[in-house]
Protein backbone atom coordinates (compact mmCIF):
# COMPACT_ATOMS: atom_id res chain seq x y z
CA UNK A 1 0.00 0.00 0.00
CA UNK A 2 1.22 3.51 -0.73
CA UNK A 3 0.17 7.12 -0.85
CA UNK A 4 -1.74 6.63 -4.15
CA UNK A 5 -4.30 4.51 -2.37
CA UNK A 6 -4.77 7.16 0.27
CA UNK A 7 -5.00 9.87 -2.39
CA UNK A 8 -7.71 7.94 -4.22
CA UNK A 9 -9.55 7.47 -0.95
CA UNK A 10 -9.43 11.18 -0.14
CA UNK A 11 -10.70 12.09 -3.62
CA UNK A 12 -13.54 9.66 -3.13
CA UNK A 13 -14.30 11.31 0.18
CA UNK A 14 -14.50 14.72 -1.47
CA UNK A 15 -16.92 13.45 -4.13
CA UNK A 16 -19.06 11.86 -1.46
CA UNK A 17 -19.01 15.02 0.57
CA UNK A 18 -20.31 17.04 -2.36
CA UNK A 19 -23.27 14.71 -2.72
CA UNK A 20 -23.79 14.01 0.94
CA UNK A 21 -27.21 14.11 2.46
CA UNK A 22 -26.21 13.50 6.02
CA UNK A 23 -23.16 14.01 8.16
CA UNK A 24 -22.29 12.01 11.23
CA UNK A 25 -19.99 12.55 14.14
CA UNK A 26 -19.56 10.19 17.05
CA UNK A 27 -17.53 8.95 19.93
CA UNK A 28 -15.81 5.77 18.79
CA UNK A 29 -13.72 3.54 20.98
CA UNK A 30 -12.86 -0.03 21.85
CA UNK A 31 -13.48 0.78 25.50
CA UNK A 32 -13.73 4.00 27.40
CA UNK A 33 -9.97 3.92 27.93
CA UNK A 34 -9.22 3.12 24.29
CA UNK A 35 -11.07 6.06 22.91
CA UNK A 36 -11.58 7.90 19.68
CA UNK A 37 -13.90 9.70 17.33
CA UNK A 38 -15.61 8.98 14.06
CA UNK A 39 -16.99 11.25 11.39
CA UNK A 40 -18.55 10.53 8.05
CA UNK A 41 -20.79 11.37 5.16
CA UNK A 42 -23.92 9.42 4.49
CA UNK A 43 -26.15 9.10 1.42
CA UNK A 44 -29.50 7.38 1.03
CA UNK A 45 -29.26 5.14 -1.99
CA UNK A 46 -32.86 3.95 -1.85
CA UNK A 47 -35.81 4.43 0.47
CA UNK A 48 -39.17 2.82 0.94
CA UNK A 49 -42.04 4.26 3.00
CA UNK A 50 -44.82 2.02 4.25
CA UNK A 51 -47.74 4.10 5.34
CA UNK A 52 -49.61 3.08 8.45
CA UNK A 53 -52.56 4.66 10.17
CA UNK A 54 -50.35 6.29 12.74
CA UNK A 55 -47.52 7.30 10.44
CA UNK A 56 -45.06 5.64 8.12
CA UNK A 57 -42.24 3.20 8.51
CA UNK A 58 -39.20 4.05 6.47
CA UNK A 59 -36.57 1.61 5.24
CA UNK A 60 -33.39 3.05 3.78
CA UNK A 61 -30.39 1.64 2.00
CA UNK A 62 -27.45 3.80 2.95
CA UNK A 63 -23.94 4.33 1.78
CA UNK A 64 -21.45 6.18 3.91
CA UNK A 65 -17.79 6.98 4.15
CA UNK A 66 -16.34 7.23 7.62
CA UNK A 67 -13.04 8.24 9.08
CA UNK A 68 -12.26 6.84 12.52
CA UNK A 69 -9.41 7.86 14.76
CA UNK A 70 -8.85 6.07 18.04
CA UNK A 71 -6.11 5.80 20.59
CA UNK A 72 -4.73 2.93 22.57
CA UNK A 73 -2.75 4.97 25.11
CA UNK A 74 0.94 4.12 25.23
CA UNK A 75 0.51 1.83 22.25
CA UNK A 76 -0.76 3.38 19.04
CA UNK A 77 -3.17 5.72 17.34
CA UNK A 78 -5.32 3.99 14.76
CA UNK A 79 -6.85 5.60 11.70
CA UNK A 80 -9.44 3.78 9.61
CA UNK A 81 -11.17 4.90 6.43
CA UNK A 82 -14.31 2.85 5.98
CA UNK A 83 -16.87 2.78 3.18
CA UNK A 84 -20.04 1.33 4.64
CA UNK A 85 -23.26 -0.11 3.25
CA UNK A 86 -26.14 0.06 5.68
CA UNK A 87 -29.82 -0.44 6.29
CA UNK A 88 -31.96 1.69 8.57
CA UNK A 89 -35.54 1.27 9.69
CA UNK A 90 -37.27 4.34 11.10
CA UNK A 91 -40.51 3.64 12.93
CA UNK A 92 -43.55 5.88 13.19
CA UNK A 93 -42.33 7.38 16.42
CA UNK A 94 -38.82 8.01 15.15
CA UNK A 95 -37.10 5.02 16.74
CA UNK A 96 -34.47 3.55 14.49
CA UNK A 97 -32.66 0.25 14.20
CA UNK A 98 -29.78 -0.03 11.82
CA UNK A 99 -27.15 -2.42 10.58
CA UNK A 100 -24.19 -2.03 8.29
CA UNK A 101 -21.23 -3.81 6.81
CA UNK A 102 -18.03 -2.01 6.04
CA UNK A 103 -14.72 -2.37 4.34
CA UNK A 104 -11.83 -0.50 5.85
CA UNK A 105 -8.33 0.69 5.23
CA UNK A 106 -6.34 0.89 8.45
CA UNK A 107 -3.12 2.51 9.52
CA UNK A 108 -1.67 2.56 13.00
CA UNK A 109 0.91 5.02 14.26
CA UNK A 110 2.95 3.75 17.18
CA UNK A 111 3.32 6.00 20.16
CA UNK A 112 6.90 6.59 21.19
CA UNK A 113 10.11 5.98 19.34
CA UNK A 114 10.42 3.06 16.94
CA UNK A 115 13.72 1.59 15.85
CA UNK A 116 14.10 -1.01 13.13
CA UNK A 117 17.02 -3.32 12.66
CA UNK A 118 19.08 -3.07 9.52
CA UNK A 119 20.50 -6.10 7.66
CA UNK A 120 23.83 -5.22 9.31
CA UNK A 121 22.28 -5.60 12.73
CA UNK A 122 22.20 -1.90 13.50
CA UNK A 123 19.27 0.12 14.75
CA UNK A 124 17.71 2.90 12.77
CA UNK A 125 15.05 5.30 13.99
CA UNK A 126 11.81 4.98 12.00
CA UNK A 127 9.55 8.03 12.12
CA UNK A 128 5.78 7.58 11.87
CA UNK A 129 6.16 3.83 12.23
CA UNK A 130 3.01 1.80 12.27
CA UNK A 131 1.16 -0.88 10.46
CA UNK A 132 -1.07 -0.95 7.40
CA UNK A 133 -4.00 -3.26 7.19
CA UNK A 134 -7.58 -3.89 6.24
CA UNK A 135 -10.35 -3.47 8.75
CA UNK A 136 -13.70 -4.79 7.57
CA UNK A 137 -16.56 -5.16 9.98
CA UNK A 138 -20.22 -4.96 10.76
CA UNK A 139 -22.33 -2.88 13.11
CA UNK A 140 -25.72 -3.06 14.77
CA UNK A 141 -27.36 -0.07 16.34
CA UNK A 142 -30.38 1.73 17.65
CA UNK A 143 -31.31 5.36 17.87
CA UNK A 144 -33.94 8.01 17.30
CA UNK A 145 -34.71 10.30 14.38
CA UNK A 146 -35.60 13.58 16.00
CA UNK A 147 -37.10 14.96 12.80
CA UNK A 148 -39.99 12.50 12.79
CA UNK A 149 -41.93 13.98 15.65
CA UNK A 150 -40.26 17.32 15.74
CA UNK A 151 -38.34 19.62 13.54
CA UNK A 152 -34.78 18.87 14.58
CA UNK A 153 -32.91 17.43 11.58
CA UNK A 154 -30.95 15.05 13.75
CA UNK A 155 -30.56 11.38 14.47
CA UNK A 156 -28.98 10.20 17.66
CA UNK A 157 -27.67 6.68 17.65
CA UNK A 158 -25.45 4.07 19.26
CA UNK A 159 -23.76 1.31 17.28
CA UNK A 160 -21.87 -1.77 18.39
CA UNK A 161 -19.10 -2.60 15.91
CA UNK A 162 -17.33 -5.86 15.25
CA UNK A 163 -14.16 -5.06 13.35
CA UNK A 164 -11.24 -7.23 12.35
CA UNK A 165 -7.75 -6.05 11.53
CA UNK A 166 -5.78 -7.99 8.94
CA UNK A 167 -2.98 -8.82 8.82
CA UNK A 168 -1.93 -9.14 12.42
CA UNK A 169 0.83 -11.65 13.06
CA UNK A 170 -0.39 -13.70 10.08
CA UNK A 171 -3.90 -13.78 11.49
CA UNK A 172 -6.72 -11.38 12.33
CA UNK A 173 -7.19 -9.15 15.35
CA UNK A 174 -10.70 -8.65 16.66
CA UNK A 175 -11.46 -5.02 17.46
CA UNK A 176 -14.91 -4.48 18.96
CA UNK A 177 -15.95 -0.86 19.26
CA UNK A 178 -18.75 1.32 20.54
CA UNK A 179 -20.00 4.30 18.56
CA UNK A 180 -22.32 6.91 20.06
CA UNK A 181 -23.15 9.91 17.96
CA UNK A 182 -25.30 12.24 15.96
CA UNK A 183 -26.29 12.33 12.31
CA UNK A 184 -27.09 15.74 10.88
CA UNK A 185 -29.64 15.64 8.07
CA UNK A 186 -29.02 18.33 5.49
CA UNK A 187 -31.57 17.12 2.92
CA UNK A 188 -34.97 15.58 3.36
Amino acid at each position, binding site marked *: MNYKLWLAAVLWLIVQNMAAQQYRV*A*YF*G*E*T*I*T*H*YGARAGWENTLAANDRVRSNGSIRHELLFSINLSVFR*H*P*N*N*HIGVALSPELGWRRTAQGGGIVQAAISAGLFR*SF*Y*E*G*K*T*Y*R*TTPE*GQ*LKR*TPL*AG*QWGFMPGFSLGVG*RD*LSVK*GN*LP*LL*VFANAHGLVQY*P*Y*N*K*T*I*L*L*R*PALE*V*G*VIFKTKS
Partner: protein
Amino acid sequence: MRYITQLAGLLALSATLILMACTPDDPAAFSENLRLRHKGADMPVWVRGNMTGNKILLFLHGGPGECAICLREFFADVEKEMAVAYWDQRISGAASGNADPATLNYPQFAEDLGMVIKLLKTRYPDAGIYLLGHSFGVEMAWQFLTTGNNQHEIEAFVAMDGVYATYDWLLQVREWVMREAAAQGDAEALTFMQNHPITPENMRTVSWGDWYSRMFRLGANPVWPTDDKDHVFYLWFKTPGSKFSQLANIGHYDHYYAEEIFTFDRSQLLKNVTIPVALFWGKKDGIIPIEMAYRTQERLERAVPLVVFDNSWHSPMHTEQAKFSQALLDFVQEN
Protein backbone atom coordinates in the same frame (compact mmCIF):
# COMPACT_ATOMS: atom_id res chain seq x y z
CA MET B 1 -37.72 21.19 23.99
CA ARG B 2 -37.72 17.42 24.49
CA TYR B 3 -35.33 17.01 21.55
CA ILE B 4 -33.02 19.68 22.84
CA THR B 5 -32.92 17.77 26.11
CA GLN B 6 -32.13 14.52 24.27
CA LEU B 7 -29.39 16.17 22.29
CA ALA B 8 -27.92 17.73 25.38
CA GLY B 9 -28.03 14.34 27.06
CA LEU B 10 -26.19 12.74 24.17
CA LEU B 11 -23.53 15.41 24.16
CA ALA B 12 -23.13 15.03 27.90
CA LEU B 13 -22.75 11.26 27.50
CA SER B 14 -20.13 11.74 24.80
CA ALA B 15 -18.23 14.25 26.87
CA THR B 16 -18.33 11.93 29.87
CA LEU B 17 -16.99 9.03 27.83
CA ILE B 18 -14.16 11.13 26.48
CA LEU B 19 -13.27 12.51 29.89
CA MET B 20 -13.33 9.06 31.44
CA ALA B 21 -11.19 7.89 28.58
CA CYS B 22 -8.40 10.33 29.25
CA THR B 23 -5.58 8.33 30.76
CA PRO B 24 -3.82 10.33 33.43
CA ASP B 25 -0.16 11.04 32.97
CA ASP B 26 1.97 8.09 33.91
CA PRO B 27 2.96 8.61 37.54
CA ALA B 28 6.36 7.05 36.96
CA ALA B 29 9.27 9.40 37.45
CA PHE B 30 10.63 8.32 34.09
CA SER B 31 8.47 7.14 31.24
CA GLU B 32 9.34 6.38 27.64
CA ASN B 33 7.66 4.24 25.02
CA LEU B 34 9.95 2.41 22.63
CA ARG B 35 9.33 -0.14 19.91
CA LEU B 36 11.67 -2.53 18.17
CA ARG B 37 10.88 -3.61 14.63
CA HIS B 38 12.76 -6.81 13.96
CA LYS B 39 12.07 -9.71 11.61
CA GLY B 40 8.41 -9.03 11.16
CA ALA B 41 7.64 -8.17 14.77
CA ASP B 42 6.91 -4.71 16.16
CA MET B 43 7.68 -5.23 19.82
CA PRO B 44 6.87 -2.54 22.40
CA VAL B 45 9.23 -1.74 25.24
CA TRP B 46 7.86 0.50 27.97
CA VAL B 47 10.53 1.99 30.21
CA ARG B 48 9.15 3.18 33.51
CA GLY B 49 10.49 4.07 36.92
CA ASN B 50 13.46 5.79 38.45
CA MET B 51 16.35 6.40 36.08
CA THR B 52 18.52 8.45 38.43
CA GLY B 53 20.70 5.46 39.27
CA ASN B 54 21.14 4.51 35.60
CA LYS B 55 19.99 0.97 36.22
CA ILE B 56 17.37 -0.74 34.09
CA LEU B 57 15.70 -4.02 34.91
CA LEU B 58 14.65 -5.73 31.67
CA PHE B 59 11.73 -7.99 32.50
CA LEU B 60 11.40 -11.12 30.37
CA HIS B 61 7.84 -12.34 30.67
CA GLY B 62 6.71 -15.92 30.66
CA GLY B 63 4.42 -17.97 28.51
CA PRO B 64 5.63 -17.87 25.86
CA GLY B 65 2.89 -15.60 24.66
CA GLU B 66 2.08 -13.70 27.83
CA CYS B 67 2.90 -10.03 28.37
CA ALA B 68 5.19 -7.89 30.46
CA ILE B 69 3.39 -4.60 30.90
CA CYS B 70 0.30 -6.43 32.16
CA LEU B 71 2.28 -7.43 35.27
CA ARG B 72 3.54 -3.93 35.93
CA GLU B 73 1.54 -3.46 39.12
CA PHE B 74 3.78 -6.03 40.83
CA PHE B 75 6.84 -3.88 40.15
CA ALA B 76 5.57 -0.71 41.82
CA ASP B 77 8.19 -0.83 44.59
CA VAL B 78 10.99 -1.72 42.17
CA GLU B 79 10.09 1.24 39.95
CA LYS B 80 10.64 3.59 42.86
CA GLU B 81 14.31 2.64 42.97
CA MET B 82 15.25 1.81 39.39
CA ALA B 83 13.81 1.77 35.89
CA VAL B 84 12.00 -1.27 34.59
CA ALA B 85 11.78 -2.09 30.88
CA TYR B 86 8.63 -4.05 30.08
CA TRP B 87 9.09 -5.82 26.76
CA ASP B 88 6.26 -7.66 25.06
CA GLN B 89 7.98 -10.35 23.00
CA ARG B 90 7.14 -11.21 19.39
CA ILE B 91 3.60 -12.55 18.91
CA SER B 92 2.89 -11.80 22.56
CA GLY B 93 0.97 -9.22 24.52
CA ALA B 94 0.73 -5.96 22.64
CA ALA B 95 3.44 -6.81 20.10
CA SER B 96 2.10 -6.20 16.62
CA GLY B 97 3.49 -6.38 13.11
CA ASN B 98 3.11 -9.44 10.96
CA ALA B 99 5.62 -11.85 12.44
CA ASP B 100 5.72 -15.37 11.10
CA PRO B 101 4.94 -17.98 13.77
CA ALA B 102 7.89 -19.93 12.39
CA THR B 103 10.09 -17.36 14.13
CA LEU B 104 8.92 -18.64 17.52
CA ASN B 105 12.13 -20.51 18.15
CA TYR B 106 14.90 -20.24 20.73
CA PRO B 107 17.61 -18.75 18.51
CA GLN B 108 15.18 -16.04 17.44
CA PHE B 109 14.08 -15.39 21.03
CA ALA B 110 17.70 -14.86 22.00
CA GLU B 111 18.35 -12.67 18.98
CA ASP B 112 15.32 -10.52 19.85
CA LEU B 113 16.58 -10.17 23.40
CA GLY B 114 19.97 -9.08 22.12
CA MET B 115 18.37 -6.42 19.95
CA VAL B 116 16.21 -5.14 22.82
CA ILE B 117 19.32 -4.78 24.97
CA LYS B 118 20.98 -2.96 22.09
CA LEU B 119 17.96 -0.68 21.84
CA LEU B 120 18.10 0.14 25.54
CA LYS B 121 21.82 0.82 25.30
CA THR B 122 21.23 3.07 22.32
CA ARG B 123 18.63 5.08 24.18
CA TYR B 124 20.39 5.02 27.56
CA PRO B 125 24.12 4.59 26.88
CA ASP B 126 25.11 5.10 30.52
CA ALA B 127 22.68 2.62 31.98
CA GLY B 128 23.47 -0.85 33.25
CA ILE B 129 21.05 -3.57 32.15
CA TYR B 130 19.85 -6.26 34.55
CA LEU B 131 17.73 -9.18 33.38
CA LEU B 132 14.83 -10.66 35.27
CA GLY B 133 13.40 -13.77 33.66
CA HIS B 134 10.18 -15.36 34.82
CA SER B 135 9.23 -18.89 33.73
CA PHE B 136 9.67 -18.96 29.93
CA GLY B 137 11.61 -15.73 30.25
CA VAL B 138 14.31 -17.72 32.06
CA GLU B 139 14.63 -20.05 29.09
CA MET B 140 15.02 -17.08 26.80
CA ALA B 141 17.68 -15.62 29.07
CA TRP B 142 19.68 -18.85 29.32
CA GLN B 143 19.55 -19.20 25.54
CA PHE B 144 20.90 -15.67 25.23
CA LEU B 145 23.49 -15.82 27.98
CA THR B 146 24.98 -19.10 26.78
CA THR B 147 25.39 -17.85 23.22
CA GLY B 148 28.68 -16.23 22.21
CA ASN B 149 29.72 -13.38 24.47
CA ASN B 150 26.20 -12.17 25.06
CA GLN B 151 26.43 -12.42 28.82
CA HIS B 152 28.80 -9.46 28.90
CA GLU B 153 26.06 -7.21 27.54
CA ILE B 154 24.36 -7.22 30.92
CA GLU B 155 25.29 -6.67 34.54
CA ALA B 156 23.48 -9.58 36.19
CA PHE B 157 20.59 -12.00 35.84
CA VAL B 158 17.77 -13.07 38.13
CA ALA B 159 16.12 -16.36 37.14
CA MET B 160 12.70 -16.81 38.70
CA ASP B 161 10.88 -20.13 38.45
CA GLY B 162 12.33 -21.09 35.08
CA VAL B 163 14.29 -23.88 33.46
CA TYR B 164 17.51 -24.47 31.54
CA ALA B 165 16.42 -27.65 29.74
CA THR B 166 13.02 -29.10 28.89
CA TYR B 167 13.94 -32.70 29.62
CA ASP B 168 15.27 -31.95 33.09
CA TRP B 169 12.14 -29.93 33.77
CA LEU B 170 9.81 -32.77 32.77
CA LEU B 171 11.72 -35.13 35.02
CA GLN B 172 11.25 -32.81 37.98
CA VAL B 173 7.59 -32.18 37.25
CA ARG B 174 6.93 -35.92 37.09
CA GLU B 175 8.65 -36.38 40.43
CA TRP B 176 6.66 -33.51 41.92
CA VAL B 177 3.34 -34.92 40.71
CA MET B 178 4.12 -38.40 42.07
CA ARG B 179 5.24 -36.96 45.39
CA GLU B 180 2.16 -34.74 45.77
CA ALA B 181 -0.18 -37.45 44.51
CA ALA B 182 1.14 -39.82 47.15
CA ALA B 183 0.87 -37.17 49.86
CA GLN B 184 -2.63 -36.11 48.85
CA GLY B 185 -3.95 -39.60 48.15
CA ASP B 186 -4.52 -39.02 44.45
CA ALA B 187 -4.06 -42.58 43.19
CA GLU B 188 -5.09 -41.74 39.66
CA ALA B 189 -2.43 -39.07 39.23
CA LEU B 190 0.19 -41.29 40.84
CA THR B 191 -0.65 -44.21 38.56
CA PHE B 192 -0.69 -41.96 35.51
CA MET B 193 2.80 -40.68 36.14
CA GLN B 194 4.13 -44.10 37.07
CA ASN B 195 2.86 -45.31 33.71
CA HIS B 196 4.48 -42.43 31.86
CA PRO B 197 8.20 -42.38 32.53
CA ILE B 198 10.15 -39.71 30.69
CA THR B 199 13.20 -40.30 28.57
CA PRO B 200 14.95 -38.04 26.07
CA GLU B 201 13.61 -40.31 23.37
CA ASN B 202 9.94 -40.25 24.34
CA MET B 203 9.48 -36.75 25.76
CA ARG B 204 7.92 -35.50 22.52
CA THR B 205 4.96 -37.75 23.26
CA VAL B 206 4.07 -35.80 26.39
CA SER B 207 0.39 -34.88 26.41
CA TRP B 208 0.40 -31.37 27.86
CA GLY B 209 -3.26 -31.49 28.78
CA ASP B 210 -2.84 -34.74 30.72
CA TRP B 211 0.16 -33.43 32.60
CA TYR B 212 -1.11 -29.96 33.40
CA SER B 213 -4.55 -31.12 34.50
CA ARG B 214 -2.96 -33.33 37.14
CA MET B 215 -0.41 -30.70 38.13
CA PHE B 216 -3.11 -28.11 38.76
CA ARG B 217 -5.35 -30.64 40.49
CA LEU B 218 -2.55 -31.17 42.98
CA GLY B 219 -2.03 -27.47 43.58
CA ALA B 220 0.85 -26.67 41.26
CA ASN B 221 -0.20 -23.02 41.17
CA PRO B 222 -3.56 -22.32 42.79
CA VAL B 223 -3.17 -18.55 42.82
CA TRP B 224 -3.18 -16.46 39.65
CA PRO B 225 -3.16 -12.69 39.24
CA THR B 226 -6.36 -13.02 37.24
CA ASP B 227 -8.14 -14.31 40.35
CA ASP B 228 -8.17 -10.68 41.43
CA LYS B 229 -11.00 -8.66 39.87
CA ASP B 230 -8.97 -5.46 40.08
CA HIS B 231 -6.19 -7.09 38.07
CA VAL B 232 -8.68 -8.27 35.43
CA PHE B 233 -10.07 -4.73 35.21
CA TYR B 234 -6.52 -3.48 34.84
CA LEU B 235 -5.86 -5.96 32.04
CA TRP B 236 -8.93 -4.96 30.08
CA PHE B 237 -8.94 -1.24 30.58
CA LYS B 238 -5.59 0.03 31.80
CA THR B 239 -2.92 -1.81 29.84
CA PRO B 240 -1.68 -0.41 26.55
CA GLY B 241 -2.60 -3.49 24.59
CA SER B 242 -5.81 -5.23 23.79
CA LYS B 243 -6.81 -8.50 25.42
CA PHE B 244 -7.95 -9.55 21.97
CA SER B 245 -4.36 -9.41 20.73
CA GLN B 246 -3.44 -12.19 23.15
CA LEU B 247 -6.40 -14.22 21.97
CA ALA B 248 -5.25 -13.73 18.39
CA ASN B 249 -1.79 -15.00 19.23
CA ILE B 250 -2.69 -18.16 21.12
CA GLY B 251 -2.94 -20.40 18.08
CA HIS B 252 0.55 -19.53 16.93
CA TYR B 253 2.23 -21.60 19.62
CA ASP B 254 1.11 -25.03 18.45
CA HIS B 255 4.39 -25.76 16.73
CA TYR B 256 6.35 -24.43 19.67
CA TYR B 257 4.69 -26.86 22.07
CA ALA B 258 4.79 -29.74 19.60
CA GLU B 259 8.41 -29.40 18.51
CA GLU B 260 10.44 -26.38 19.49
CA ILE B 261 10.17 -26.71 23.25
CA PHE B 262 11.82 -30.13 23.10
CA THR B 263 14.91 -28.70 21.45
CA PHE B 264 15.69 -26.54 24.44
CA ASP B 265 18.70 -27.76 26.38
CA ARG B 266 21.38 -25.41 27.75
CA SER B 267 22.38 -27.79 30.53
CA GLN B 268 25.96 -28.25 29.31
CA LEU B 269 26.46 -24.53 28.71
CA LEU B 270 25.41 -23.08 32.05
CA LYS B 271 28.91 -23.61 33.40
CA ASN B 272 30.12 -20.92 31.00
CA VAL B 273 27.98 -18.24 32.62
CA THR B 274 30.25 -16.08 34.75
CA ILE B 275 28.14 -12.98 35.38
CA PRO B 276 26.29 -12.61 38.70
CA VAL B 277 23.17 -14.76 38.84
CA ALA B 278 20.49 -15.13 41.49
CA LEU B 279 17.68 -17.67 41.64
CA PHE B 280 14.25 -16.64 42.95
CA TRP B 281 11.82 -19.49 43.51
CA GLY B 282 8.37 -20.13 44.91
CA LYS B 283 8.81 -23.03 47.32
CA LYS B 284 5.39 -24.47 46.48
CA ASP B 285 5.70 -24.14 42.71
CA GLY B 286 4.52 -27.30 40.98
CA ILE B 287 4.81 -25.93 37.47
CA ILE B 288 8.57 -25.58 37.80
CA PRO B 289 9.40 -27.30 41.10
CA ILE B 290 12.09 -25.86 43.33
CA GLU B 291 14.24 -28.91 42.60
CA MET B 292 14.95 -27.20 39.29
CA ALA B 293 16.56 -24.38 41.26
CA TYR B 294 18.89 -26.88 42.94
CA ARG B 295 19.76 -28.44 39.56
CA THR B 296 20.44 -24.97 38.18
CA GLN B 297 22.77 -24.21 41.07
CA GLU B 298 24.68 -27.44 40.45
CA ARG B 299 25.23 -26.62 36.81
CA LEU B 300 26.46 -23.09 37.36
CA GLU B 301 30.13 -23.05 38.28
CA ARG B 302 29.99 -19.87 40.32
CA ALA B 303 28.00 -19.91 43.53
CA VAL B 304 24.63 -18.28 43.10
CA PRO B 305 22.20 -17.24 45.83
CA LEU B 306 18.81 -18.90 45.99
CA VAL B 307 16.01 -16.78 47.40
CA VAL B 308 13.15 -19.04 48.43
CA PHE B 309 9.64 -17.64 48.72
CA ASP B 310 7.99 -19.90 51.25
CA ASN B 311 4.45 -18.75 50.57
CA SER B 312 4.62 -18.67 46.80
CA TRP B 313 4.02 -20.95 43.88
CA HIS B 314 4.96 -19.97 40.33
CA SER B 315 4.90 -16.17 40.59
CA PRO B 316 6.55 -14.80 43.74
CA MET B 317 6.31 -11.23 42.44
CA HIS B 318 2.56 -11.64 42.76
CA THR B 319 2.22 -13.62 45.98
CA GLU B 320 5.10 -12.09 47.95
CA GLN B 321 5.56 -8.76 46.28
CA ALA B 322 7.32 -6.96 49.13
CA LYS B 323 9.91 -9.69 49.66
CA PHE B 324 10.38 -10.04 45.92
CA SER B 325 10.97 -6.32 45.47
CA GLN B 326 13.42 -6.09 48.34
CA ALA B 327 15.40 -9.17 47.28
CA LEU B 328 15.57 -7.93 43.73
CA LEU B 329 16.72 -4.45 44.70
CA ASP B 330 19.29 -5.89 47.11
CA PHE B 331 20.73 -8.10 44.38
CA VAL B 332 20.90 -5.23 41.92
CA GLN B 333 22.54 -3.05 44.55
CA GLU B 334 25.20 -5.68 45.19
CA ASN B 335 25.95 -6.17 41.51
